[in-house]
């Protein structure tokens, strides 16, 4: 298996900082916005975004939630292995709020579709945007596109993108794996 680093730790952190500035342009003080990390690995990115925004704007009040999409997926009973559910923690209402949905990798668009479905259980938002660290281009199953992109990559369906987080893997890094 070949592996290539798509984002090294330095560029990883710079990318997160850049994404935060893009968010600030559209969300001002975030008083009408909420950030929702899709379980499991979108939550890591949501937490990094939160931490960075708090660095950039000291005293900012951010609402950050965790959303699990297991029960909304369209591949229930179609997979060989059972899906593991994760915790949902949404301690706020999203009615009339601007929702920033966050995931680590945007690939087929199926997770976002399930995420949108799951999110609607918590109210009717004014607007929904999608923020991702890595976008895998030309691989969509649904007509969906992210609004904020850390880095876009061309990849084959046989390749795999893996985001490493310091919380679990002790380093912030993105790699592209090619199976020979």
């Amino acid at each position, binding site marked *: 298996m070949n592996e290539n680093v798509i984002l090294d730790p330095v560029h990883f952190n710079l990318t997160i900082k850049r994404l935060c500035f893009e968010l600030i342009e559209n969300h001002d003080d975030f008083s009408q916005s909420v950030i929702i990390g899709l379980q499991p690995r979108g939550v890591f990115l949501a937490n990094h975004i939160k931490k960075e925004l708090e660095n950039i704007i000291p005293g900012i009040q951010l609402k950050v939630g965790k959303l699990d999409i297991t*029960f909304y997926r369209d591949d229930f*009973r179609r997979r060989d292995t059972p899906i593991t559910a994760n915790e949902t923690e949404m301690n706020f209402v999203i009615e009339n709020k601007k929702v920033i949905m966050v995931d680590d990798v945007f690939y087929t668009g199926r997770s976002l579709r399930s995420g949108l479905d799951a999110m609607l259980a918590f109210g009717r938002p004014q607007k929904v945007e999608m923020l991702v660290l890595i976008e895998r281009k030309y691989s969509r199953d649904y007509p969906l596109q992210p609004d904020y992109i850390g880095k876009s990559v061309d990849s084959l369906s046989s390749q795999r993108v893996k985001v490493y987080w310091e919380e679990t893997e002790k380093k912030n890094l993105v790699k592209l794996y090619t199976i020979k």
Partner: protein
Amino acid sequence: MGELSVDHLLGIKQLNKEDIQLIFETADHFKEVINRPIKKVPSLRDITIANLFFENSTRTRISFELAEKRLSADTINFSASSSSVKKGETLIDTVNNILSMKVDMIVMRHPEPGAAVFLAKHVDSRIINAGDGTHEHPTQALLDSYSIREKLGSVKSKKVLILGDVTHSRVALSNIFALNKLGAEVMVCGPPTLIPKHIKELGVQVEYNLEKALNWCDVVITLRIQLERQNEKLFPSLREYAMVYGLNKNLLDSLNKKILIMHPGPINRGVEITSDVADSKQAIILDQVENGVAIRMAILYLLASKIDRG
């Protein structure tokens, strides 16, 4: 999330400890779901479930129906009193007719012990036992243990007393199996006429003195005295039963600790439990009802995940 080791929920006896833990962990997620503003998930939108109730039931039937609807399953309801069963149709014929209408799962309550096992052997569908005679009532036992876990942190090493008509109770038998598998200590208490002779072989202690039993336990599961059994002369009168084996406030206040009070319902107020106890903070009877929906959602979800598509 793993997979259940069984294809049907026929009784607690067939489950292993890992199955029960998996059901509990899945139920934790569903408990969060049923407390959302919109309490519905689309997981079972292509599944049809038949609720076959050959015996009266209020809360179990409603709880299953609600669990099915919260999972977006299509449901059909059948009760024996308004069906062809009265015209002499056999159980298998009734069920096969319903299955011909492309039903994926069956939730069944039946007055005959073993009816669910019989059905699982003869029809091609996932079967969930919602109570079969005096045999088992697995979902009740699961929600009871789940409620103990929720209130006390775990079931392991907890001392649980099952009080009342143990002989005729499917809730008692399922609870004994579940609590044993989860590592709790179990004691039964009631009039000798309502305690089976060889119950100790199931690994439970027997105590006929209620005060001693209450002093021993952390949790008491009070069983309903089935009023229809009065004619069998198993105890002199309801009044005497209430005096000797009924839970009342004075008795509970005399203990040097607060124990958890549970009841599967429906309650006979003033017989096995007084109103002030049933409505007290120690009683978690209504929590049990809420947990029942989450537990049944978990079971339906986990069994449905084993249905092959196409």
